[in-house]
C-alpha cells in the first residue's frame, strides 16, 4: 500500500518535471514571438543604448542559447533580474508579493468551503424546498457574476453607501480584507455549493443511507457521518485546480482592491515584456496547479478506501 503510494507520487513528480520543462519551452517561445521587447518602450532610446542593454541581459544571443542559459540558472534557483524593476531580482519580487496573495487565497478558500458546503448540505436535505431554491439561485448568481463586476458592486454598497468597510487596501485599515476575500470567494463558493448538493443528493439515494437510518441516527448525523464523505469527492477533485486558480487567478481582485500581491505583477510583466518575470510567474503557477492536483488526488485517496485499493 505505502510503496504503491510512493510509486504513484514519484511518477507524478517525474511527469511534473517534464511538464514544467514543456511549459518553460512554450512560454519562452511565445514571449519571444510577441512583438517588442523589454527595452523597446515608447521613450526614444538610442540604438547603441538598446544594444548595450540587450548585451547586458544577453538578449543578443541566439534564442536556444538564451533558453538553456535560463534553464541552467533557474535550476539553481536563480530566476534572473527583473528587466523593468531595475536592481531587483525576480525572486525578490515574488517573495515580496506572495504573502498578500497567499493570505487572500487562504481566506477566500476557507470562506468558500465553509459557506459552500453548508449551503450545499442545506439544499440537499430537501431538494426542491425554499432553502434549496434560494441557495442554488444564489449559487447561480455567484457563478455568473465575474469578480470585476461583483468587486466594484460590493465596494459601492458596503464601502461607499453604507461606509461599513474600507474600499481598498490590504492590512492597512480595519476590515479591509473582507471585500476582496468575499469577491474572490464568491465564484468558488457557488461551485462548491452546487457540487456538494449534487454529491449529497446522489449519496443520500444510496441504500446504505437507509441502513444508517435503520440505526436510529438523526438526519444530521446521517449527512455528516455517512453521506458527506462520498459527496465531497467531486468537491475535492474540483478543489485541486481551484486552489491553484485562487492563487494564480486573484489578479483581478488584487487590481480592484490595490492589493500588493503577485497577481498584479503578472499583468504588468506581460505588458512590459519583462521576460524573466513572465517566465518565473508562469512556471510558479504551473507548479502550483500540478501540486494542488496531486494534493487533491491524495485527499481523494484518503477519503475513498476503494481508490486506495485500486492503487495497490
Amino acid at each position: 500500500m505505502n510503496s504503491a503510494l510512493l510509486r504513484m507520487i514519484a511518477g507524478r513528480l517525474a511527469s511534473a518535471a517534464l511538464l514544467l520543462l514543456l511549459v518553460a519551452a512554450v512560454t519562452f517561445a511565445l514571449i519571444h514571438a510577441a512583438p517588442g521587447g523589454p527595452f523597446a518602450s515608447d521613450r526614444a532610446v538610442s540604438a547603441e543604448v538598446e544594444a548595450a542593454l540587450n548585451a547586458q541581459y544577453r538578449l543578443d544571443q541566439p534564442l536556444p542559447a538564451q533558453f538553456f542559459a535560463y534553464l541552467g540558472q533557474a535550476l539553481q534557483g536563480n530566476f534572473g533580474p527583473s528587466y523593468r524593476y531595475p536592481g531587483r531580482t525576480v525572486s525578490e519580487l515574488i517573495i515580496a508579493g506572495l504573502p498578500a496573495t497567499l493570505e487572500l487565497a487562504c481566506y477566500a478558500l476557507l470562506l468558500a468551503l465553509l459557506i459552500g458546503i453548508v449551503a450545499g448540505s442545506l439544499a440537499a436535505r430537501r431538494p426542491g424546498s425554499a432553502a434549496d431554491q434560494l441557495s442554488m439561485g444564489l449559487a447561480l448568481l455567484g457563478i455568473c457574476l465575474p469578480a470585476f463586476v461583483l468587486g466594484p458592486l460590493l465596494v459601492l454598497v458596503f464601502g461607499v453607501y453604507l461606509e461599513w468597510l474600507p474600499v481598498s487596501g490590504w492590512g492597512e485599515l480595519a476590515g479591509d480584507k473582507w471585500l476582496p476575500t468575499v469577491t474572490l470567494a464568491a465564484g468558488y463558493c457557488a461551485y462548491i455549493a452546487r457540487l456538494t448538493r449534487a454529491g449529497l443528493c446522489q449519496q443520500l439515494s444510496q441504500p446504505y443511507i437507509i441502513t444508517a437510518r435503520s440505526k436510529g441516527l438523526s438526519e444530521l448525523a446521517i449527512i455528516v457521518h455517512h453521506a458527506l464523505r462520498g459527496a465531497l469527492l467531486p468537491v475535492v477533485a474540483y478543489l485541486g485546480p481551484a486552489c491553484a486558480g485562487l492563487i494564480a487567478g486573484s489578479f483581478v481582485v488584487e487590481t480592484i482592491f490595490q492589493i500588493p500581491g503577485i497577481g498584479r505583477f503578472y499583468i504588468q510583466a506581460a505588458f512590459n515584456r519583462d521576460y524573466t518575470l513572465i517566465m518565473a510567474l508562469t512556471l510558479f503557477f504551473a507548479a502550483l496547479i500540478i501540486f494542488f492536483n496531486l494534493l487533491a488526488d491524495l485527499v481523494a485517496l484518503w477519503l475513498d478506501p476503494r481508490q486506495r485499493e485500486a492503487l495497490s
Partner: protein
Amino acid sequence: MSLLAVEKLCVSIAGQPLVHGISMSVERGRCTAIIGESGSGKSLSLSALLGLAPGVVATAQRACFDQRVELLANPEARRALLARQIGWVSQEPMSALNPFKTVAAQITEAYRGAQPPRQRAAQLLAEVGIRDPQQRLDDYPHQFSGGMRQRVAIAMALVNDPALLICDEPTTALDVTVQAQILALLRQLQQQRGLGLILVSHDLAVVAAVADRVHVMRNGEFVDSGTPAQLFGEPAHPYTASLVAALPQPQQRRTAAPTPLLCATQLQVWRGSGRRARAVVDGVTLSVARGEIVGLVGESGSGKSTLGRALLGLLPVAAGTIQFAGQRLEANAVTAAQRAALQLVFQDPLASLNPRYSVYQTLAEPLQLHSRQPQPLAQQVRRLAADVELPERLLQRRPSQLSGGQRQRAAIARALACQPQLLVADEAVSALDLSVQADILRLLQKLVREQQLAVLFISHDLAVVRAIADRVAVMCDGQLVEQGDTATLWNAPRHPYSQKLLGAVLSVPS
C-alpha cells in the same frame, strides 16, 4: 403478548395508495414472514413502518411495539427504538454498507453497551461466522464478498441486542451454502435470545424453513395467511397455489445430438495482472450438444461466469482448446459467423440492454447485421418478439419501461436475433420473481426444443438448474469437480463438494 402488533397499515407514495390495510404481529422468539412477488409492497410496508423511506406516508389503526410505543404516532420514539430495540437488515448486501467506513466503525456506530466497541464488533463478527474477526475489523466493505457483507449487515443490526429483527430478503443474493449458514444463525438467535423475527422474502423454501407464520402479499394486501405447512402443503387460496405451482419442477431428460456442438478441453483462463494474476478456470473439460441444456452450478467466485465467457470466445484462453462446430475457436480470431452463433444472456437485462434503444431498435440492430432472411425487417422483429412471447405493443418501449420478465424476454430475443447455435445464460433468471422465472424457463425449453439450440445454463440456484438442465457440471475453485446426468447427480452426488452444495438446498414441504 406480541412484540409488534400492526393493524390496518396503509402506505401511500405521492397520494397513490400502495398498501391497503395489512395486519400482522410477531411474538418474542417467533418468526413472521411476508412473501410475495416484487412490487407487491412487502418491503415498502416495513420500511414505511420504521420510517426508513422518505416521501412515504404510512397510517395504521395500531402499530404498537412491545405494548408501549406507537411507531407511527411518534417518530422520535421510533428512532430511539431503532437505535436499541429494533434491528433491520437490508435487501441489498452489496450496497447496504457505507463504502467509506470500516466495518468495525459501522457496526459499533450506534452501540450503547458497556463493552469496548472494537471488542463488541469482533464478537459480533465471530457470531455471524466471519473468520479471523480481529483481522477484519479495519477492512472496508468492498474487501468482503456479497455473502460476507450480508453477515456484516446482520452483525450491525444485532449490535444492541435488539428484541426485534426485521430482515428484508436476507439471503436472496447468496449462495445456497451461505444461505443455509445465515438461516441457521437467525434461528439460533431466535431461540437463544428470544428474538422476534420478521422476514420478507420471495423464496418459498426459505420462508418454509424459518417462519412460524406466513402472510402472502399481493398488490398491497395479504391474500392468505397461515403456517408454512398449511399454506404450502395444501394451499387454499388460488394465488398461493399458483406460487407453489411456479416452483421449479424436475423435468424429463431430452435426447441430445450424439456429437457435441461445443467442446472445451483442459481449458485454463487467467484473470488479473501482475502478482494478482491467477487461474480462475483451471483444467476444465466440458461439452454441449445441440438440443441440450447443460447446467453449470457453483458458488460465487468459483469461475462459472469466466468459463461461460471463455467458451464464447470473449476471453483469451491460457491453455487448452475450444472446438465449435468442428472449428477451432480462438478469442483473438473469432469470425463474424462464430460471433453470431455464440450468444450470451446476462443476469441483469437492465444493465445489458442499451437504455436509450427501444426494444424494436435492440432487436433490429443484430438482424440488420446478421440476418439473411428475405422478409422486411419489421416483420422479422415481430416474429422474434412472438418467439419469446413478448407482446407487440411493447416493441416501442425502452428497457426501463418494461417489467423484469419482459426485459429478460427482450434480452433473449436479442440473443436469438443472431440465430445462435449456442446460448450461454448467465444467471438469466436469478433476479426474477418465481412465476416470471417459471415462464422464462418454459420459454428457454421451448426454444431448445424447436430451434435445437445448445444452452449452457449458469446459475447459483440449484432448484432452477435441476428443473431445466439435462446434464449438470459442478464447479468449485475453477475446476469441474463432478459432471453428469441431472437426476443421477442429484440422487447420488459423488464428490464431497457436490454433496455439501446439494445438502444446503432448501425445499418447500409438500
